[in-house]
């Protein structure tokens, strides 16, 4: 009997904890993440400021928790969008094959050939950058890889007896896709979604490094890390960058691990693409 194992549940626990903290951040006894000069600037970690304070005297712990809101949301929305569009197209391509497949696969390959960050830049550089548009941008980037995987899995399942049987019994395509294929393709896709969420969270950080993450005073992990990564801060107050880096690292690790376990658990063979 295979089990997901204790580390899997630790990973899930960490993700749950972060999610809860992020959702209820406003009601938690946290410092105001925007309040400047509430404390001395550039303090190290202490009991009153768990992660210390940044260059403007803001509480890094509060900023990390509030940052989780945007970072997790962006990760979630981005991959949800990728799943919806890419996953859907992939299933359609894999089920119908033929010309439909060729057209959709061609679109995927085109998207994949387009330098990803340039595409992200093209979009983010010209629009107002809030959590929705940044998510959308990263979601678009994920369409091709998600779509290719969903297509490949659909093809495998479409050959299986139960799908053939349903077809013989006269079920129409919509029914077969939604009732027979979707539930089966969902499992490898779910594993990929976890991995993809990690990628999206990191991508938000990359955008922040190019100054193209969410605008205004919205806090995200990427923006906090960039803020703490100035050479002098790294030297004197590494806590400002390292704590958000650590939290992001653990989150991505948890997502990767959970995704990997889910995949192994359901015995989905590792596919390159």
């Amino acid at each position, binding site marked *: 009997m295979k089990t997901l194992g204790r580390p899997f549940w630790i990973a899930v626990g960490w993700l749950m904890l972060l999610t809860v903290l992020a959702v209820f951040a406003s009601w938690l006894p946290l410092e105001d993440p925007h309040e400047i000069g509430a404390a001395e600037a550039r303090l190290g970690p202490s009991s009153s400021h768990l992660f210390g304070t940044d260059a403007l005297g803001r509480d890094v712990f509060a900023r990390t928790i509030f940052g989780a809101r945007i970072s997790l949301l962006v990760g979630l929305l981005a991959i949800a969008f990728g799943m919806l569009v890419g996953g859907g197209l992939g299933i359609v391509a894999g089920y119908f094959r033929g010309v439909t497949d060729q057209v959709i696969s061609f679109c995927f390959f085109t998207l994949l050939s387009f330098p990803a960050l340039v595409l992200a830049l*093209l979009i983010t*550089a010209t629009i107002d950058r809030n959590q929705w548009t940044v998510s959308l941008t990263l979601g678009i980037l994920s369409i091709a890889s998600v779509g290719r995987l969903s297509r490949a899995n659909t093809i495998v399942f479409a050959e299986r007896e139960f799908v053939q049987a349903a077809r013989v019994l006269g079920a129409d395509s919509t029914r077969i896709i939604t009732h027979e294929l979707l539930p089966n393709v969902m499992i490898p896709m779910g594993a990929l979604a976890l991995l993809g969420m990690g990628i999206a969270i990191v991508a938000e950080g990359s955008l922040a490094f190019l100054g193209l993450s969410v605008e205004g005073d919205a806090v995200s992990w990427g923006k906090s890390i960039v803020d703490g990564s100035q050479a002098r801060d790294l030297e004197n107050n590494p806590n400002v960058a390292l704590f958000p880096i650590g939290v992001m690292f653990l989150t991505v690790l948890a997502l990767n691990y959970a995704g990997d376990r889910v995949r192994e658990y359901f015995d989905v063979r590792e596919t390159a693409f």
Partner: protein
Amino acid sequence: MRSLVLSRLAQLVLVLLAVTFLAFSAMNVLGDPLFNIVGPLAELDCDAVSRGEIASTSSSLDATRTDCEIVAEAKAEFRLDEPLMKRYVLWLTDSARGDFGTSFASEGVPVSDILKEKFPASIKLMIYAEVIALGLAIPLGVYGAYRANRRPDRILSVVSFGALAIPNFALGVVLLYVFGLKAGIFPSSYDSSSFRTELTSLFLPALTLGSGLAAGYQRLLRTDLVTTLQEDFVHMARAKGMTDRHIMFRHALRPSLFSVITVFGIQTGALIGGALVVEQIYLIPGVGRELVTAVVRDDFPVVLAGVTIIATAFVVINFAVDLLYGWLDPRVRAKS
């Protein structure tokens, strides 16, 4: 084989058409090319001027032309009044001849000159990163599979998991700070003056990019190798008395490289121009940085040319990977 090449070439052309059209229309829809040419004059309502509602102005010091005349000239010269499709076709025919036009931002400089200057550093970085990645991943993947599910393999697995979860920018910043600035072991900025300085100055950025790649390759290789090692021909090789090293590297490795090669192709394609964060952190004058600047400046000709070349490289590399499959497994060759 020949039909494969032909169909791939056709695909290459089609993908490039799609990619460039996408980029072309995106830049035209999302950006304002006129602003790049005439600056704030683009904001002038020249229709209103021609109707006499607003006074004609002349701020260019060139007394012979009014502002609106300048705008009109620019529009004519850059075909801004033409429909998008026509402009695209014109651009396409020019660039097919290798003429990517001149940059908006660096006046009068041919785009091809700019890219010629920027691509080498990016490509060197990409090769370096891949050499590091494969140099680490192949021995460690082989070792992990050799010791599968035992302590060294478990440790490797934890390490590669960790390496995969470290964001590039975080690793880049920390490596730069620790080894570049504090320990001073490696130069902190790109130095192309000699092969040696290039090798040392690109080491940290290449390591930053390479470590994540290495972790990914290591995991793929290990998994596939473990499967391969259960194959009869491996037992056969052992029955023949071949050494473990010989078996791992000469028998098992090659048929286990498929996943790695596939991902390698995609990653390598993505690395050209995709290393922009690392180029930014380590100040490498590469094409990634150039593209970032060009995009935010709406420097269309540079962006379009960059995108075209990178997409071409991507498609070509993946084509090469398909050919590599044939080398890896003669059965694939036979099929195609």
